[in-house]
C-alpha cells in the first residue's frame, strides 16, 4: 500500500463559481485556492503566504470574504463562490471597484490586487458609507508590498461613492448597460480620470 494512501482518494466537489456550476474530483486535502487555480484554472486568485495572513487569495463565499488558502475545496461543496474573474462585465468593462483601482493607481505589480478587490467588494457590501478610518481598517487584512496603500484606500473611497450612486451590489458582476457606468471604456486604456471624490465619471 502506498505510504500516502488517502492523498489520492478523490471526492467530487460541486460549486457555483461566478454564477457558473463547476465540478472537479479532488483529494480531500486540496486547498480551495489550489482547487480554483489549478483544477478550475481560475488563476486570478493568487497565493501569497498560504498561512492566512496576506489576503491575496481572498474570494467571496456566499457573498462574504474568506481566505481561500485556509479552506479545503471539499468544505465548500454546494456553495457559491465569487472570484475576481466574476466582477467585470462580459465585455470586459471593469467593475466599479476595479475601475477605481485603476483610476487611483491602487496597484503596481498586481499580485495582491485580486485579494484587495474581493476584500473591498465584501467590505463595501457591509459598509456602504465608510469614512477614511473605516476604509483603512476594512482594508487592513490584506498585504501589499508595492503601493504603500494610499492608492488602494483612495480607490475604495471612490468605489464606495460610485456604488452608492449606481445602487449596485459590489459583490455582483458589473452590468454596464443597467447603470450609470454604461459606456465606460475600461479596455486596455481606460480613462485617466478619477479624483477620489466619489463622483461618477461622465
Amino acid at each position, binding site marked *: 500500500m*502506498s*505510504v*500516502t494512501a488517502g*492523498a*489520492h482518494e478523490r471526492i467530487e466537489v460541486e460549486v457555483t463559481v461566478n454564477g457558473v456550476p463547476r465540478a472537479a474530483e479532488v*483529494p480531500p*486535502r*486540496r486547498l480551495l485556492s489550489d482547487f480554483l*487555480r*489549478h483544477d478550475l*484554472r*481560475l*488563476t*486570478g*486568485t*493568487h*497565493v*501569497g*503566504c*498560504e*498561512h492566512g*495572513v496576506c489576503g491575496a487569495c481572498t474570494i467571496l463565499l456566499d457573498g462574504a470574504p474568506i481566505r481561500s488558502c485556509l479552506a479545503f475545496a471539499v468544505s465548500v461543496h454546494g456553495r457559491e463562490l465569487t*472570484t*475576481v*474573474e466574476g*466582477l*467585470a462585465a462580459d465585455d*470586459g468593462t*471593469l467593475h466599479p471597484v*476595479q475601475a477605481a483601482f*485603476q*483610476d487611483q*493607481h491602487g*496597484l*503596481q*505589480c*498586481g*499580485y*495582491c*490586487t485580486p485579494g484587495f*478587490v474581493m476584500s473591498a467588494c465584501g467590505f463595501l457590501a457591509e459598509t456602504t458609507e465608510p469614512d477614511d478610518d473605516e476604509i483603512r481598517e476594512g*482594508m*487592513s*487584512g*490584506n*498585504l*501589499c*508590498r*508595492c*503601493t*504603500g*496603500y*494610499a*492608492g488602494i484606500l483612495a480607490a475604495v473611497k471612490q468605489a464606495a461613492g460610485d456604488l452608492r450612486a449606481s445602487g449596485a451590489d459590489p459583490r455582483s458582476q458589473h452590468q454596464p448597460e443597467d447603470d450609470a457606468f454604461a459606456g465606460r471604456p*475600461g*479596455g*486596455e*486604456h*481606460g480613462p*485617466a480620470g478619477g479624483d477620489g471624490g466619489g463622483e461618477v465619471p461622465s
Partner: protein
Amino acid sequence: MTTRSVGAPVARSEDPRLLRGEGRYLDDLGHDAFQIAMVRSPHAHARVLDIDVSGALEVEGLIAIHTFEDLPPRLQEPLPLLLPHPSLTAGRTQHLLADGEVNHVGEAVVMVTATDRYAAEDAAERILVEYDPLPAVVGPERARAAEHAVHDDVPDNVAAHLEQSIGDAPAAIGAAPNRLRFRLDIERSASTPMEGRGTYARWDGDDERVRLHTSTQAPTSVRAAVAAFLGLQLAQVECIAPDIGGGFGVKIMHPWPEEILVPWAARELGHDVKFTEDRREHFVSANHERAQVHWIDVGFDDDGRVLGLDVEFIHDHGAYIPYGLIVPIITSTQLIGPYKLENYRVVFDSVYTNTTPVSPYRGAGRPQGCFAMERTIDRIAAHLGKDRTEVRSVNFLQPEEMPYDFGLTFQDGRPLRYDSGDFPASLEKLKQLVDWDGFEERRAAAEAEGRLLGIGLATYVEGTGVGPYEGGHVLIEPGGTVQVSTGLSTQGQGHQTVFAQIVADELGVDLADVRVVTGDTRRFPYAVGTFASRAAVMSGNAIHLAARRVREKALRIASEALEVDAEDLELADGQARVVGSPDTAIDLKVVATLSNPLRYAFDESARIATQFANPGKEGQPPVTDDDEPGLEATDYYSPMSSTFANGMHAVEVSVDPDTSDIEVVRYAVVHDCGPLLNPRIVQGQVLGGVAQGVGGALYERMAYDEHGQLQNASFMDFLMPYATEVPSVDIDHLETPSPLNPLGIKGAGEAGVIPGAAAIAAAIEDATGVVIDAMPISPSQLHEQRLTTAQDRPGDTT
C-alpha cells in the same frame, strides 16, 4: 491632434488585465507540469553525512529524486560569482544542491520532482538526511571575531576588505575642534515581494529548445546562465519574465539554483517542470539584505561643518556572496549624501555568516549609508545645540558646484560624480511642506495632551540609471499597431504605460496603439536588468532613441510618397502630414506598408499603398544598401556614468509616554528625479518606498537566534505593514533635469525607502531624548532604552 502624454498622469494600460484577474504570473502557467519540492537544510551549519530516500520511493506521484551526487559534472559546479571585484579575495558561492555541507537554514539539499506539489512535498518529507551539526556563525560581529568559520578555507570569515578615501580624514578629524565617535547598527530585512520565486521550463525535444519562464529581474542573464550550465547554444534557450508579483531587488539574483535545475530536469524527464516557492521557503532561501554595523569618527567645526569623516563597517553578506560587493560599495559611496565631504575614509569587511545570502533589496546599502550619515549630522547638531536643518545647510554641496566629482569609485566602477541637484532648494521645500519652523508649537500642544511629539529629517542622494546599457526596439506594423520591446523585465513599475507614452509622443500615435513587451528574450535578447532605479532611464532613453529613428524613417518614406520635403511633415494622429495643411497626409500604417517592397493586397493599407508604388530608383535595387524593409529600428542607450537623484524626508512621530508605542503622524517627502514621465507612477513608486522604509524602521527584521534559526519566517511574525501601519504622505517634487540623457530623467524606483529609518530614528530621538543608534526599533525596545536612559542620568542637568 494627439496630445503629448509624457509628463501627464496617464492611467496604466497594465491595469485592466491585472484587475480582471487575467495576469499571467509564474504559477499561473504550466498547470500540467511536474512540480519541484526541495528538501532544505534545517541546520544553519552542518555536514551532510547521509541521504536516505528509500522512504519516499513509494509515494504516489513521485517522478524523480536528485541529490548533488546525481547531477552531471557541470551542474556540480558552484554558481558563478556575478560581480567579481579585486578586493573580493575569498568569494564563495553555493552549489545547486548542497555538496556535503550546508551553510544556512533553507539551503537546498535534495530536489524532488512529482506530478504535483502535494506529492512532491509528501516525498520530500520522507527523505531522511543525516546531518552532523557544526557551530553556527550568526551576526556580523561574531563573524568578524572568527571563533568559528563558515567556510573551512576562509578562517577569518572575511570575503572582502575594501578601503576608499578622499583627502586625509584621520588628520582632518585630529585637527578638528570637535570630535564624536559612536556606533550605528542596522538589522537584516528583505524584499519579501508578494509573489515568491518561481521557474517553469518546457523542453521541446523536436526543436531541441528550452522555453523558460521565470520570475526574474534579469531574464537575458538567466538565459545565458541556463545555456552555459545545460551546454546549449543561446539560440536554444528562450527566457521570459511573465507578470511578476514584485521584485524589490531579490529577483535580480541570478541564476537561482532552481533556475538551472528546473530546465535541466525538464530536459532529463522530457516533461514540463515547475518550481513555485512557498512563503517559508522564500524567507529562508531567497536573499536578504541590510545587516551592517558601523563605527563613525567625525571631526567638525563650530558651525557643524564636517571636516573629516571616518567610517568603518562590517557588512553581513550571509553564507555566500553570489552578487559580489555591490551593497557595501553602495553604502561606502552613497553614505556621503548631499554633503561636500573633502576628507572621508571608509573601510569595510564583508563577512560570511551562517544565514541566508545577501543581495540587493530596494535601496541596496543606501538606507544603511543614509542612516550613518544622517545620524552623524544629527549628533553634530545636538552637540552644538544647533537646528538640524542648519547643520545640513552648511554642509550641502551647492548647485553651482555640479557636476561634482568626489574622487571615489561608484558601484558601476565609474567615478562618483553628481550630475545635478539643488539641495538647498529641496530642503527649503521640505521645511515648508512639513512646517518645520512651526513644530515647537505642535510639540507643546501635544505635550499638553500627554503625548511626546518629535520631528526628524533625513536626506539622500541616489545613483540611478546605472549602465552599461539597455536597448529598445520599435516597429510600426502595417496594421498600424506600434510594437515596442526592451529586454529588461517589469515588476509593477508601469513600464508598459511609460514606455508607450515615450513612443506615442515621438510617433504622434495614440497610446492605445502602442504595445510594449518587456523581459522576453524572443523579442529583445540584449539587456542588463531591472535594478538600481534604472529601467526608465536606461530603457526609456533607448526606446526614445529607437522611436526617433522610426520617426525619421517614416518621414523619409512619407516625403517620397507625398512628394513633399520631409521638413514640412509632422507625425500626428497616426499620420504623416504636411504642417499647416493636414489634408495632405498619409496614414502611418500605409507608410509601414510602403516600407516593405513586398506587399500583397491583404488589407486596406496595402491597397492604398499601391497608389504610391515606387518602382525604385533608377539603377538601385528595391532595398538600397543603406536601407532595410520594415518601419522599425533598434537603438541602445549607454551612459558615461550614473545620474544622481536626491530627496529629503521629514517625519513627525508621537510616542506614548507610558507604553512607548510609536505612531508616525506626519510624513513629508521632497523628491527630485528630474522631469516626471508619469507623475502618477512616480508618486506610486515613492509611496511604496516610504511604506517599506516605515516597515524597515519600525516593524521588519529577520530575527535569527544564535543557532542561525530564523524565528519569524512567516508573514504572521515578520511584520510587514498593513494599511493601518502606513501613514499618509505629503509629496512635493523638484524637477532638476539630468544633463546626461536625452530625456533628462533620473531613476525613482528606490528613492522612497532610503531615508525612512534615518528620519524616523531622528524623530523618535527628538520625541524621547533617547539616542537612537540602532534600527529597526520596536516599542518594547524603545521602552527599555527610555528606562535605561532615565536610570543612567537620574540627575541629568544638561
